[in-house]
């Protein structure tokens, strides 16, 4: 008989048990004793089993002793960095004094320096040219009024101040309210970009606006 399915083999088990029932009974009754297991063997096997899982844990990237410390250190470092950079400017702790020579780190780049220098030169050149132009204009004019004005975002002149005023009479500068009024009227007719401006208004005839 060649049983193919599970039930047939279960049947086969029963049949064999019935057939050799006497042997099984005798064996169960008279089977030779087995000496008891040595306690030392117990300890040996368990020790090996424990060491094996401990080794595996040691190697685990997250739970291992070494990796666990490294992970914790990295985590604390990341939290520290985040904390420092998330502080508002005024609340930021002062940087600790560096032991290493930081002159190289703190030195601006050459390109940045060159750009800054060029911008400074341009500003100085413009200021100088403006001053020279003003000086020339003032020397040839019979009078002038220098005004400071504030223009709003909408382009309206909000404030006009007379910074300097000169009506030349006998080679001397005198204050002339008509000249000032004339200068203010001239400025009011112009349009300016928002912001603070300075304007120089000239007069060609002595005591008379241009």
């Amino acid at each position: 008989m060649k049983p193919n399915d599970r039930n047939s083999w279960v049947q086969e088990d029963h049949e064999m048990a019935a057939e050799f029932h006497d042997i099984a009974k005798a064996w169960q009754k008279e089977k030779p004793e087995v000496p008891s297991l040595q306690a030392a063997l117990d300890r040996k096997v368990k020790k090996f089993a424990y060491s094996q899982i401990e080794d595996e844990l040691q190697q685990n990237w997250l739970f291992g002793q070494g990796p666990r410390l490294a992970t914790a250190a990295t985590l604390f470092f990341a939290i520290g960095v985040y904390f420092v950079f998330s502080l508002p400017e005024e609340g930021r702790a002062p940087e600790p004094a560096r032991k290493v020579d930081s002159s190289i780190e703190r030195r601006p780049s050459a390109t940045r320096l060159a750009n800054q220098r060029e911008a400074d030169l341009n500003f100085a050149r413009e200021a100088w040219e403006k001053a020279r132009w003003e000086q020339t204009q003032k020397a040839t004019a019979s009078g002038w009024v220098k005004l400071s004005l504030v223009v709003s975002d909408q382009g309206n002149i909000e404030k006009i101040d007379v910074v300097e005023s000169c009506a030349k009479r006998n080679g001397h500068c005198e204050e002339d309210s008509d000249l000032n009024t004339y200068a203010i009227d001239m400025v009011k007719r112009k349009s300016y970009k928002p912001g603070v401006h300075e304007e120089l208004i000239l007069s060609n005839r002595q005591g008379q606006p241009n």
Partner: protein
Amino acid sequence: MALALTDDTGRHGATDQISDDQLMLAYRRGDKRAFDALYTKYKNPLHGYLYRHCNSETQTAELFQDVWVRVIASSSRFEGKGRFRSWIFTLAHNCLVDFYRKNEKQQQHTTYEESAGGNGPDDEAGDRELRSALDKSLRRLPLDQRQAFCLREEQGFSIKEIAVIQNVSAEAAKSRLRYAYKKLKESMRGQRS
């Protein structure tokens, strides 16, 4: 995972509710108590099974260790499909096969150790003789038949399970069992006559 321990006296706690497979998987995850529970459950059956195939306690101890080393080393490959019991005895079977291959000449037919018998009183001399005869007969059986017999009579495996453990067809396992039973029956008859 909470595991209640099973103590050496055989009293079982909550581990009874947990399958061997679950225990093995828990051990894989690093639970020492799970290993303890498994070890407590299987140490004596395994030791007895190995002893039936060895000449001495020393050899048995060596094989016993070897089997557990394989269990521990193979734990990562254990898939847990409800077959831990078969699996551990398969490892034991393989250990025995390796052991017999290494010691082929010496172990082809193991010899009976007088110490294997019990020390009963004189009025039990007949039983003792029968026991001795059974043991002798068992040890004279070829390894595969002896294994099949022990797996069935001492460990309660079915024919199909024995076939899986021995890595043979169920027919072959059945045949080995039948031979083993018959030879033991003959030896018992000889002892009684």
